[in-house]
Structures are given as structure tokens and as C-alpha cells.
């Protein structure tokens, strides 16, 4: 997965290559102002109809995961506590506390389980999430 940091110059040169269907579309979906997200906490957003958990870390980096807890099939990961476990940035599901790596989506407590990651960038103070390439542009 590509994590794109805030670019001070506001360059858009780092946009991932969109799918063929979207080649003339901007793959980034505007979500909200950065200030709308609490520091060191998650919040959910709907991107291309899918619930995405957004986590704003202390350095204003924003990371995105599927919001659905794969153990329960319920959209709640954004409501977990953000942590760091052995150097990995994590969130613990609020249901039964399984931890997920914010950067890879891997579950630390069950190697067979993971959640999808979503590319996120912060551009001119706005949080944007990349739509999956297989979803037709709106």
C-alpha cells in the first residue's frame, strides 16, 4: 500500500495510477477537513459506499483501513483505541480487542486475518481517500 504524506507544495504528482475506467477521473475522494479528525483517534467515513476507518496520528499523518471488524462483520474499527505494539501502529477493535496494524491491515492476534488498507492523503488541509480502482467513478 502507498501512504502519501501531506505535500507542502500541494503537488498532485503522487496520485496513484487509477484503473483504466477512471483514467480521466480524480481517484481521490474528498472526505473532510483534517481538523474534523481527533488526534490519536479514529473516525469513519463513507468512500465509494464503503465504510473506511481513518486514524489521525500525532504527526497529522492519516491512515485508512476498512472499518469492518472481520471477526464480527460490523463497522466499528474506527471506534477502537489507537496504540503502538512492538513498534507497529495499531488499533484495537472495540468489540473483542483484536489489534490491527494501521499500515498493513494485518491482525496482530491472528495471522490468518487482515483488513484492507485505503490510501489517504492530506491536501491543503483536506483529508482525501483514494477510491478503489475497480469502483466506477461517480
Amino acid at each position, binding site marked *: 500500500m502507498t501512504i502519501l504524506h501531506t505535500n507542502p507544495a500541494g503537488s498532485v504528482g503522487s496520485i496513484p495510477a487509477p484503473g483504466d475506467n477512471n483514467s480521466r477521473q480524480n481517484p481521490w475522494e474528498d472526505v473532510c477537513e483534517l481538523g474534523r479528525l481527533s488526534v490519536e483517534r479514529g473516525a469513519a467515513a463513507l468512500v465509494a459506499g464503503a465504510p473506511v476507518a481513518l486514524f489521525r496520528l500525532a504527526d497529522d499523518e492519516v491512515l485508512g483501513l476498512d472499518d469492518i471488524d472481520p471477526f464480527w462483520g460490523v463497522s466499528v474499527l474506527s471506534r477502537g483505541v489507537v496504540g503502538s505494539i512492538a513498534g507497529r501502529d495499531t488499533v484495537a477493535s*472495540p468489540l473483542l480487542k483484536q489489534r490491527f496494524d494501521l499500515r498493513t491491515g494485518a491482525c496482530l492476534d491472528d495471522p490468518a486475518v487482515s483488513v484492507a488498507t485505503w490510501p489517504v492523503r492530506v491536501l491543503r488541509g483536506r483529508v482525501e481517500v483514494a477510491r478503489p480502482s475497480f469502483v466506477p467513478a461517480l
Partner: protein
Amino acid sequence: MAISNRCGTGLTTRLGVRRQLVVAGHGMVGHRLVEELVEANGLAGVDGWEVTVVGEEPRPAYDRVALSSAFAGAGEDQLTLVSDGFFDGPGLTLLVDEAVAAVDREAHTATTTTGRVLRYDHLVLATGSRPFVPPLPGRELPGVFTYRTLDDVDAITAWCAGRRTGVVLGGGLLGLEAANALRLLGLEVHVVEMAPRLMPVQLDDGGAAALRTRIEGLGVHVHVGASSEAIDAGTDGAVAGLRLADGTTLAADVVVISAGIRPRDDLARACGLDLHERGGIIVDDSCRTSDPAISAVGECAVAAGRVWGLVAPGYKMAAAVADQLGGGDATFEGTDLSTKLKLLGIDVASVGEPHGPGAVLDDPGSATYKKVRVDSEGHLVGAVLVGDASAFGDLVQLHRSGAVVTEVLTLLAGTAVAATGPSALVCSCNSVTTGDLVSAIEADGISDLATLKACTKAGTGCGGCVPTVKLVLERQLAAQGVDVRRGLCEHFPDHTRQDLYDLCRIEGFRTFSDLLARHGTGPRGCEVCKPTVASVLASLGGGYVLGGEQAALQDTNDFALANLQRNGTYSVVPRMPGGEVTPRQLMACAEVAEDYGLYVKVTGGQRLDLFGAKLDDLPTIWARLGDAGLESGHAYGKALRTVKSCVGINWCRYGVQDSTSMAKLLELRYRGLRAPHKLKMAVSGCARECAEAMSKDVGVIATEAGWNLYVGGNGGFRPRHAELLAEGLSDAELVRSIDRFLQYYVRTGERLERTAAWIERVEGGVDHVRRVVIEDSLGLGADLEAQMAAHVESYECEWAATLRQPDRLALFQTYVNEGAPT
């Protein structure tokens, strides 16, 4: 996992040279045999055996010993004994939902229930046992069950839904397990045993009496020396009761028969193997039947003259046969039947030969019984332990080593017998010694309990030795110079919750980041230390729990000021002190429930729980409840929940004090107090105890002479009666004592440690707490009281505070971009 319903003959034919091993039965022992084979040889196939296991149940082998945990919510995947991919190994096939139906010893073939024909070079019968059902009239009625398989568990669970009373026929080990299962399903339970005592095989009269006292203390009715005559049907044709020989009838919606086991020897009988006159396949000390090409292991076998109805001897038989299949000559010549069990949460152990005279320590007050039998030369012959089995490991070791016992009284007192040499047996289910554990820790560099259990199998049978395994691990790590951390998590490896509380209280930390920077490690903490510190700061008067940096530390429930439910919605619980509610408040609850489609349930704590609220709706719901004068019930917090009460002297003919008013006073005083774990209280207006105060963290019971104060009670998974802290208190004395008690607990409790566990942990137990709280032995009294006064002074409803702050309300939005253009 290669669980197949098709025969994998292709490989067999191609290789040709491989010898065929067929294992009839995939229970605990059958599976252990295959595991031993695989472990001894890396892969079963390496040794030239192609193994086919035929299991009758629709699932692979699981931990039958832990069956009752299935009622407590353990799923099939927690009970399974088969690790992922195990049967993917070469030369291994598992057939489930299929049984061996016939054996042709001439042709060396086993035919299964699906008509499949398996050729064997060696056949192992591991068909186990079946429950013995006595020929009682009515045993076929709907609602009569046996208790042996997960399917039995499912059937019993389904049947018991909405039913109230259960009878278990049989007061042995399995019967008591079944009784516990029914209890977990919420039924009132009777145990009927024909012998004059419970667990007649393992216990003597004194031990059985102590066990009975404890079991009855849990609300289970025990009938011993009771013969059953018939199971009666009700008008609906289902079971309605068990009729006893003395003419009485116990009403029952369900009857579970657990009257012993019988070896499943039908297959052996049909193919002409030698059987014991009372059932069971006779085997020699190599576990061979009268046909040397056929072995039998586990509960279907009669080995060394008897059926061994425990898993540990079964495992030993499996190990012996696996060794022989690999070319060895291991034998099974019987084993020590010493066992340690946890039945309904009660420790029960027997060592060696428990029956006969011995030195006895019998304390009816605490229902603890210990008997140690030593022969004239000082060798330990046997022992019985009920209520406290901490000496079990030492006693087993003494029994096996044949060491001479010099201090019988020391043994009885349960103090260290120092049987800690490398040959001391720690796990008797899997024959793991201290030496095995130590070499695993040293050689493989193991430093955590889970890995140690997985590698050595210690503690994976009945689980009774897990504390000992943990102790051995900690001692060994300490001996290796590894720092044994008792800290909260990797960010505070040297600090317990109490340490962090003291740091915040004494050094005045008011934010998590300051505390982490000064005393912790890493960039941000985790889901363990963050909520813990948030709770500590709140306990110390940190103010609004969603204020500033504190908000991000909170667990979901505290963050949303509501209880997250399994479907992602929340439940809402307004406070109703004393269970009192005005018509207007009731109407507000009803209207909110109707408008937002909420499910309403009256809780055990005498208030209303509104389920199914969406995150977005919480603020408007609370605005409406607040308008009606309702405030947060803190059902979401590790905080005071509710103070339950009866109507007391105001209405009840027996009441001697105003319990409702006292409950309201206490609830309003301690509402919002954050603690290491949730707090529950109750006030009863007389000794009849209708408010169930004895099961609460703080229980108050009225007497003519004043209030009696009990502490450390608990319901839930491990019920505990509260213990008397002080009696005959005036209102003011009561409040002062509870002030001090709660603040002392808040100060010294560990993370998620209820008062029950806390009192059991602190040295000196309730006597110590009494000295600190009532006698003020540490001189903390005034300080603790002042702290509580500050809490009472600064209390504010968290929902009222939240509704005043628009920036906080923005947090109650399911999606941050809802309504935004896309």
C-alpha cells in the same frame, strides 16, 4: 485440513509399500495417538505408515474434558484439539461423520458406515465409551439427555431455553460437570446420587461433605443416597420430574443422565476379540487385543485389569502404541489415578488411594477439607483435598517419589513441601515434569506462558496445573536473569496500575503524554495503558472524561458514553437511584424508545436499558432524557453502576431499616466514581437479603442494631460471597466506611480487578482491609475521606456536560463525510 468424505486411495495404491494404519475413533485418545506418531517421526509417513482416522462425530477431535465450557460460550474452535492443517500432512487422512462398522480380521479390512473398505496392517480401536443409562422407565422421554458430546451440549442448550429446573442423575465427576452446565444455562439444579456421598470414587465422606457444602452454597440442591424410580412425563409428553424410591418427586424440565460410562466394545465383540466379562476390550501391557494386529486404547479398553475413565491414562496408552508402531517397545502397566479438578469452580483433588484412615484437617466453616494418608514407614499413601488443592503438586510428587514424610501437619497446612526437583510432575494429564518445562524454557528460549503450553502441552488437559506452569516459567526466567515484568504493558513495563495511580497522585501528572514521556516508553501507549491512565486521572478528580487529550484515551464505551453492542449500536442506561422512577421519566424513556426503535429491558440493577441506539442519535436521545430529569447511569464506565435495594421498612413487614433511602443516598454519593473495574452495590432492609447484597462489591444489610457492611462479593463467572467488614454501623459510620473502602480499592486495585479478586490478592485479605478501613491502621482514613468528598463535590452528569459542548457533539457522527459532496 484434509477432512474428507472421500477415500484417498490413489496415494496408497501408488506407493504400495506403505503400511496401513486405521484408527477407529477420533476422540481425545485417538487423536493423541496420531499426534504422537507425527511428533515421534516428524511425519507419520516417514515411518512408513499411511494413517486413516475414522471419527463418528461430525467434527474432528475436541477437548471433551472441557465440555462444560461450551455452555459458558466456548466455541468449537476453542475446544478443538486439531491444529490447522494437521491432517494436510502426508499420509494422514481424517474421515468424519463416519464410523467403522465391521472388521474382517481374516482379510485385514475395516468397513465403514458408508460402505468404504479400508485395508489395514494395524488397527487401533479408540472407540471410547458411551454414557450408561440405567433402565429407568421414562428414559426415552423428550427432555432426557446424556452428556458426552458437543451435539449433546447443543441439544441440551436448545431444550433448556426458557426452562427452569434441571435434575442431574449421578453425582460423580461427569454429573457435577453436567450440573455446572445446567447452572450456566440459568436453571435451578438438583443432583441425585445413589451412593451416600458425592464423587464416591474419588472422595471420602469428609471430602464429599465439604464439597456438598460448597456446591449447595452455589444454589445447587444435592440429594445423596437417593435411588431413582422413574422419570415422569407431563401433560405435554415431555419430562416433568424424577420420581425417587422414597416416593418424593423432583420437578424437572430437563433430566441429564450421568450415571457412569460403559466401554464401546461392540465392534470388538462382533469380530470376536476377547472381552472382559463386564465389558471392555481386554488388552495386554502393550495394549494389544487378542489379535496382535489390533490394539485398543482409552476408555474402550480393559488394561491392567480395569477401564481407565480419565484422559491421562488414555494418553499414556496412546503414547505406548505410537511408540510400538514406530518400532519401540513401550508398554502401559497402569498409572496413578491422582487427579485435580475444578468442579463448579471448586478445587477437588485426590492422590493415590484416597480411601482409608489418615490425618484430617476439616474446617466446616470454610468448607475446606484435607486428608493425608501416610503408612507406618512414612510413605504417602493417598490424599483428598477439597476447597484448596494448592498442595496437590507436592503431594503427587511425594507419592510418586516414595520420599518419607516427616511433617504431616505441614502437608495438611499446605505449605511448601519443596517437591520442586526436576522430576516433579507438573501436568499429570500430559506427563510434563518441571524438568521438561525448564529445558523447554532454556533450549527454546521460551518466555511466555502460551508458547510454553503449546510446546510442552503442559496445562492443555484439565488446565489445573496452569498456575504451577506459570510459576515454573517465572522462576526459571528469573533464574536466567530475565527481568520478569509485572508491568501493565510494553509502554509501562515496570509499572502496575497502582504504581501509575501513585505517580499521578504524588507527582501530580494530569495528562497521559506527560506520564508516558516521563515514566513510559514508546510514542503513544496502547489499548491497555491508555484507558487505564484515563481511569486513574478520572479517579483523581481529572474532571470531564471527554475533555482535552483525555478523550482519545477512552475505550469506546467511555468515548461514546454508552455501551457498544455486538452489532455496532449502543445501549443507553439512565440512572434510577433506588430503582425509583417518576411517571414523567418513564414516559421519556418510552417515547425515546418508540421514536428510535429501541429494545427495552429491565436490568438486574433495577433500571431500564434501551438497546439499539445509533451513535448519531445518542445526543438527541440524551437531550430528551435529560429534559425529564434523567442523568447518565454510567453503565458504560468502570465506575459505580447501581445500588440495588428492597423496599425496606417503608412497605415490607420484615424490614428493619429504610434500605431504599440508604441505597439512593449511596448511589448519589458514589455515582461517576471511576475505579479499576465496575462497582456494584446493594442495600437490604433485613437479613432476608432480597437485594442480594452478598453478591456485590459493597453490600449493606440492615439489622435492628444498625447496618452490617459486607465487601468483595461477586456474581458472574466466579461467584463469591461478600465478607463482613463491620457491623452495627450508624448511617454516618456506614458512609465513612464505604468512602474509605472504595478509595482504598481505587488506590491499590489492579487494572480490571474487581473487589473480589483484589481482596483475595492483598496480603491479609479482608482482615487487612478491615484494619486499614475501620481501624485506620495506616493512618490513611482522613486522606481517603477527603478524596471522596472531593469526588462528591465535583460530580457532574457526563451527558449534561457533553450536551453543552458543540465540539464534543461532532464526535457522535457515524461518518465524518455524511452529506458532503462526493
